[in-house]
Structures are given as C-alpha cells and as structure tokens.
C-alpha cells in the first residue's frame, strides 16, 4: 500500500457517462475492470458522483490499488505519462513533490471532507467524459462494436456477434435534455471530453455544443474530442470556435498505406487532405492539436512516421495508453527480433530532438514543451518494446481474426506488411 503511488484526485472532480448511459469513475479505467454502475435512467449524475463514487474515493484515501487503475500503473512503469499524473497535475501536484504540493493544495479540505464522510463528497464534476455512442463511418481493425457502428454491422454479418449494441443514451431526447440541464446548472464545469464513434458526425455532439452556447456557457468551457480524419465540417468549426478552447485529437496510425488496412474505411491520401484542413482550422482559432494514435502490431513498424510528421510541425503525439484490448493486437505480440528494427528507428528519430529539459512533461498541451513531450513519448515506446514480455503466443489468435475480417473485406495484410509474411505464415496465415 502506498498513498503516493496510488492516490489520484480524479474522483473529486471527474466522471464519465458511457455509451449505454451508465456512469463510470474515470476515462482511463480499463474496460475489463469497469463495474456496471447505475445509469442516467436511474440516478441523477451529481447524486451518483457525490454518493455512489464514495468507494473509489475511499480506496484513494486509503492508498489501496483500484483494479481499474492498472493501465495508469503500467504507463508510469514505462515512463509514459499516465492519466493519474495528468489528474494530479490539475490540482497542482507532481509525483516528485507529492507530499508538500498536496498538503498545501486547496483540495485538502474536500479530501478531508471525504475522509470524514465515508468517501462522500460535496464537490461537483468539473471535468466530464461524455461517450456519445458508436456511430462511426470507419471500421478500424483494433476497434470494437461499442465504438464503431460500421464494425458492429460487419461483425454481426460475419457472425462474430449476434446483435449490435443498443442505441446510445444520448439518442433518447429525454435523457439528453436531462443531462443538458445538469450541465447548464453546473457553473464550474471546465472541460468536456467527447468520445464516439466518430464524434463529429454524432448528432448529440452538435446538440450539446449548441445548447451550451445558447446558455452562454461557452466562455469558460473547453471542449476535447478526436476525429478520424474522414470529415471536416465548416459549420462545426464555426460552432467550436465559440468555446474557450478546443483540444483536438487527430487519429492516424502512420503515414503509410497500412493505415488504410488498420483504419478500414479511410484512405491515406484523403486522410492527409482532411488532416491539413483540421490543422489549418486549429491554427486559425489557436486550438491545441495532438496526434492520437493507437499503436498496434499492425502499425508499429511504420509508427516512427508519425513522429517524423509531428516533429517539424511542433505537434504532440500521444496514445491514450499502451493497447490493452484486443490483446492479440498489442505491439508486444511481435517477437523481439521484429521489434528491434522499430526500436532502432524510434531511437534514431528521438535523437533528432534536442534535449532542452529532461523533466518529465505532464502537461502535454504546453506547446513550448512539445519537443520534450515528443522525445519522452518516443522513449516510452522504446522502453515498452524493449522490456515488455514477448506475447507472440497470441499470433494465432491475431491471424484467425485477420483471416475472418479479410474474407469480409477482400484484402490481405501481406499487401501492406510484406515484412511480416514469414511471421504470419508460421502462425497459420
């Protein structure tokens, strides 16, 4: 048990509503460990936050490990900035000055309140993650039916699943109105992060943004979301420009045709054009941009191209975590001899970035620290590829999945990754 290593302040100011309308305590909590909690149909969000998240807060105060937090622990082990570190930073605390910074923080009083009240809090969420359902025009191979309607339809057609996920909570006008009225009566909300599906084509996204503008709340609220680089919409840009700040994530795995194979439904040539359009809008409105890849065994070989694009443009790169699910797509399914050339390439790319300050960059949205952030992100992947155990025993599972999907899509991984032919053949391809 270690308070410094396990404590995260997130449950005092953050919560999430998932696609089904159920509440969750954290945007980073790993899926397999998420409990099925009450939904917006049963309990008001603020009541759930203040009373039903008490167990997580008590665990934090007791210094115990919360199972859903294992991704953050893994990220910190490899020197990758974790969600916990980000949430600590939002209350002014860094790991290296944990005790004095927390002791002098204005959050000591709310923490003490929870200590004395069985984990309850009198705070209200200031940082929301809002999952808007699976409505998406892409069918990325590493995605799942809960995040892509197109993939859900395909999986049902080829028999991987029996039924597609139910409609998202926000498609119910009554529930959406109830959620909006909670937002409108929460004057201290600072950040709303939206997740799809493809957020920008999900009707509830625009409805929520418009409602906040109509209520004149846009001046203090920052909006975060990620686009799949298939769509750019001038009306949406105009609406977003009214908010205090936009944190734009752009999803791309690599600047190589294998991106089309992994992010099925996209085309690398048009992705580049749409990316340029978003970057231009971001520059016009002074938005923060991050490349948000999900490195997998399929794209890690060409992953260095992402950094080669980002470095001269001073754009940060950040994956949410080291891929957990699907297990057979983790980059660590690659045997070590296949990892080494990637490690060498990433190391070479990192060496092109001058070291100005080797302090770990937690605030990855400070553009003056972008070079250091990029270097540290590359280094974390080098460490991960060097030191994570070989999971190549999962290759047959990967091959079985690829064969099933390729039969549906009439394509072949070998057209994109001839370098892996021998490896995949030995696993039954």
């Amino acid at each position, binding site marked *: *048990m*270690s*308070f*410094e290593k396990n*404590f995260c302040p997130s449950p*005092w*100011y953050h919560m999430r509503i998932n696609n089904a309308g159920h509440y969750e305590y954290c945007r980073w909590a790993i899926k397999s460990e998420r409990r099925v909690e009450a939904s917006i149909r049963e309990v008001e969000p603020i009541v759930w936050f203040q009373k039903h998240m008490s167990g997580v807060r008590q665990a*934090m*105060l*007791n*210094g115990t490990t919360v199972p859903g937090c294992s991704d953050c622990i893994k990220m910190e082990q490899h020197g990758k900035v974790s969600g916990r570190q980000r949430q600590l*930073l*939002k*209350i*002014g*605390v*860094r790991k290296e*000055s944990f*005790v*004095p*910074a*927390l*002791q*002098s*923080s*204005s*959050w000591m*009083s*709310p*923490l*003490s309140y929870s*200590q004395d009240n069985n984990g309850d809090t009198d*705070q*209200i969420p*200031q*940082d929301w993650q809002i999952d808007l359902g699976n409505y998406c025009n892409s069918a990325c191979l590493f995605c799942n039916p809960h995040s892509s309607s197109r993939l859900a339809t395909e999986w049902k057609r080829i028999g991987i699943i029996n039924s597609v996920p139910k409609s998202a909570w926000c498609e119910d006008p009554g529930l959406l109105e109830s959620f909006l009225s909670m937002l409108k009566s929460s004057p*201290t909300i*600072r*950040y709303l992060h939206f997740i799809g599906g493809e957020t920008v084509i999900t009707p509830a996204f625009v409805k929520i943004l418009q409602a906040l503008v109509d209520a004149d709340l846009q001046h203090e609220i920052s909006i975060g979301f990620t686009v799949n680089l298939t769509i750019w919409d001038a009306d949406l840009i105009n609406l977003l420009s009214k908010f205090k700040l936009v944190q734009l994530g752009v999803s791309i795995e690599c600047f190589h045709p294998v991106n089309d194979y992994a992010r099925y439904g996209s085309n690398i040539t048009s992705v580049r054009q749409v990316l340029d359009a978003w970057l231009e809008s971001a520059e016009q409105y002074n938005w923060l941009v991050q490349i948000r890849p999900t490195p997998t065994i399929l794209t890690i070989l060409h992953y260095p191209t992402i950094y080669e694009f980002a470095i001269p443009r001073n754009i940060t790169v950040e994956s949410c975590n080291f891929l957990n699910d699907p297990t057979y797509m983790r980059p660590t399914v690659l045997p070590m001899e296949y990892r080494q050339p990637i490690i060498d390439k990433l190391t070479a790319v990192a060496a092109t970035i001058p070291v100005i300050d080797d302090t770990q960059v*937690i*605030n990855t*949205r*400070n553009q*003056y*620290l972008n070079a250091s952030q990029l270097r540290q992100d590359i280094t974390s992947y080098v460490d991960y590829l060097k030191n994570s155990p070989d999971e190549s025993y999962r290759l047959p599972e990967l091959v079985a999945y690829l064969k099933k999907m390729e039969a549906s899509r009439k394509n072949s991984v070998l057209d994109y990754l001839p370098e892996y032919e021998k490896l995949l053949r030995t696993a039954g391809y």
Partner: protein
Amino acid sequence: MKNFLELLDTKSDMKVSVKLQIHGYVEYRASINGIQFADATEVRLDLNSDINLVIHLDKFNKGSSGIEVTEFFINSLEVLPKYLHLARPSTNYIDEYGQWRFAIPAPFYSWYHEITGQGWLLKPT
C-alpha cells in the same frame, strides 16, 4: 506513507536557500520574510507562507559594484536565476539604490505550477 490520514499527520515545510555574490564594495540589507542574512542563508518556512526575498542596496560604487543573487531554491526547485523576469526590478544583478524584491504568494506549489506552464489548476467547487 500509507494513506491520507498519515498525510494529515505529516508536518512538512519548505527549505528556502539563497546565495548572494558580492561584487566590489557594497553595503546592503538582505532578508527572507524579514529574517536578515549576510551572503547565504537556508531557512525553513511553513508550506503556506508567502515568500519575500528583499535586498536593499544602501551604498555601492555605481558601475563597478553590486549584488548578484546566484541561487534561490525552494525545496530544491530553482527560482533564480531561472525566473529572474519575475523579480522587481526584473534582474538578479542588483546595482540600483532602493529595494529589490522577489515575491511569491502562497501557496508556493500553486505559484510554481502557474509559472512553469503546467496548465489548468482546478479549484474546489
């Protein structure tokens, strides 16, 4: 440290260290939160104290002498010369009559968060 209760039971403070380099003939008064010192000091202050480093130059030879604040650290975090633009006047080489001051409002860690560009600092509701 095992839990929040132990954090509540732990008394922490800040170690503030300052080193001055005297160039030539100078008569001056230097203090940290009113505690006077000569050319170097190390004091411990409450975590929630304001911090005021003040130097008065009383006599010196204009153009050939002065005082340089070579080090100003708080809990091993560098304040000067790194953030000399926040001093008043904004220098760590003092060669003007009157008061030179570096003021840090409490709490130090919130101030440090702001000046190092660490982004949002959420306040309790």
